[in-house]
């Protein structure tokens, strides 16, 4: 089910501007990998290269290799649509489809891909909503608009929508930055459950969160404004937060930055 990601020599551009340079790392299957680093250091850009969402931005292009087990995501003949079905994504701001009900939102990935059996749909929706810890809150109003939920519920709805298509990797781009502490806790618990089934990569600005939820942590930094972001180090979360091997990581984590 869950797959290992092997990135080697990955460089991403926006037009002529190099956003991240020469990143190589391994993301272990069935684990949570957290990306931390200052704003603008390319964490989100790197995350978006992992399911080929980077090239959706006008001018976005990528050099290098991203191996998903033994397949290169950027190999010739690879369909980005297929990549995105395998590698799902949850965004910073909850973005349920405003024209659809809660049920339709969760079913959207399957319906819009046209690959589902009608009889199975209700089961999959229930399973996904349970998986996102949202079922008990919404089971009586599945046909109400998804935009009517609270922010934290909307974000869990988006997670349910992402896991309904059974991806193998789940990318989360600051999924809790727009949420209150209680909803954040709900989503962190959820991440802990989801890592049994998926490979999870999470970008976060909250270092406590990285320490709480992740098994491995990657620290990104940039040399200066306009410089490309680079991977400084990646290691077991415990090592990164107690005894990092690079001084910059320690400075950033302990707040003695710059």
């Amino acid at each position, binding site marked *: 089910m869950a797959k290992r990601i092997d990135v080697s020599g990955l460089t991403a551009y926006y037009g002529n501007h190099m956003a991240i340079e020469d990143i190589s790392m391994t993301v272990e299957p069935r684990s949570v990998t957290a990306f931390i680093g200052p704003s603008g250091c390319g964490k989100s850009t790197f995350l978006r290269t992992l399911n080929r969402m980077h090239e*959706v931005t006008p001018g976005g292009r990528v050099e290098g290799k991203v191996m998903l087990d033994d397949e290169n995501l950027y190999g010739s003949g690879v369909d980005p649509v*297929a990549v*995105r079905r395998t590698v799902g994504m949850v*965004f910073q701001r909850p973005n349920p489809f405003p024209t659809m009900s809660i049920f339709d939102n969760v079913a*959207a*990935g399957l319906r819009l891909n046209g690959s589902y059996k009608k009889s199975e749909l209700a089961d999959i929706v229930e399973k996904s909503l349970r998986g996102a810890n949202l079922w008990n809150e919404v089971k009586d*109003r599945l046909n109400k608009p998804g935009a009517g939920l609270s922010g934290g519920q909307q974000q869990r709805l*988006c997670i349910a929508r992402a896991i309904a298509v059974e991806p193998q990797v789940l990318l989360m781009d600051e999924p809790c930055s727009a949420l209150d502490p209680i909803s954040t806790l709900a989503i962190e618990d959820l991440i802990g459950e989801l890592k049994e089934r998926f490979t999870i990569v999470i970008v976060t600005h909250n270092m406590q969160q990285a320490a709480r939820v992740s098994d491995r942590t990657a620290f990104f930094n940039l040399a200066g404004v306009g410089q490309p972001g680079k991977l400084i180090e990646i290691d077991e979360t415990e090592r990164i937060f107690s005894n990092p091997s690079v001084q910059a990581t320690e400075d950033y984590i302990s707040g003695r930055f710059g």
Partner: protein
Amino acid sequence: MSNLVKDRPAVTGSAPRPGSLRQPRLPRWAPAAFALGSAVVGVAIGLVAGLDSRIQWGLIAALVFVLGSYIASTVVEGRRQAKDRLATSLVWVAFLLAVIPLVSLLYETVKRGSKALNADFLNHSMAGMLDDQAGGGVYHAIIGTLEQVGLATAIAAPIGLLTAIYLVEYGRGALAKAVTFFVDVMTGIPSIVAGLFILSFWILWLDFDYSGFAGAMALAILMMPVVVRSTEEMLKLVPNELREASLALGVPKWRTILKVVLPTAIGGIATGVMLAVARIAGETAPIVLLVFGSKTINNNPFEDPQSSLPYYVYEQWTAGQDASYDRAWAAALVLIAFVMILNLVARGIARWKAPKTGR
């Protein structure tokens, strides 16, 4: 107490030292009183000076209202409040200037148009009628307008919609810029020029006859840029996050557009198309050139001349008889009602299809 006053920091500059947060204000009824007062003054000046035109009375009243409330507010409330009142009263005057012609046009059309408007007028044509005979009707013109406008919409709406989707979702680089430029140019084409183009191309060069369809093609040329523009704006309003959410689920781009982007914007798009329909429903010039006009019922828009509501108004007015004047006004009223119904339908669709947020 005296300590408190002493401790207060000194205010420098010309602003008065704010002894309190309260300031003298004009009473709430002041604007209404000024409006009434300036109306009286306007009428008085008009009567005394013997001005004939009521418009002059109104302009004097408006000027008195704007200046009077500004001066009174300056004296009582101070400069900043006075500027606020000046802006407010200017907006009100502008609003009235815009609304008065509209209301007077509607009033005039209803007053004169209702004379000849009855059930017979709606379901009879002008077949065998003389210009100075009372009676006759507008049925053939309604049929013509419905068919021509319907055909024009059937041509222009899909092309316009697809063009807008191309420009917003796919268009990059030179081709998109060129399309945008030509859509802008098309927006400015006078209707008579669109009519002449179809006349020379369809009727003179390809040698087809006058027909409702020829008129519909000219109307489609006029309608297309309006549809493109309004649809483009509506598609741009769809948040990019929704597109990304859909793409990240592994949904192909075309399905994302079809199932996520278009449903989110459909209310606005429908409104835009309806407004474009309303705009071409009143076009006369291409109809005169291409549909030729007819007094009898012709249900086939692809063969033989037809009539249409705006053409009918023009035809009856130029006939220059009392009975035909009445018919012209009644047909104008029918046309206004038609356009208004379309607008209401468009608003209804927009409200019905708007993204729902209820709990």
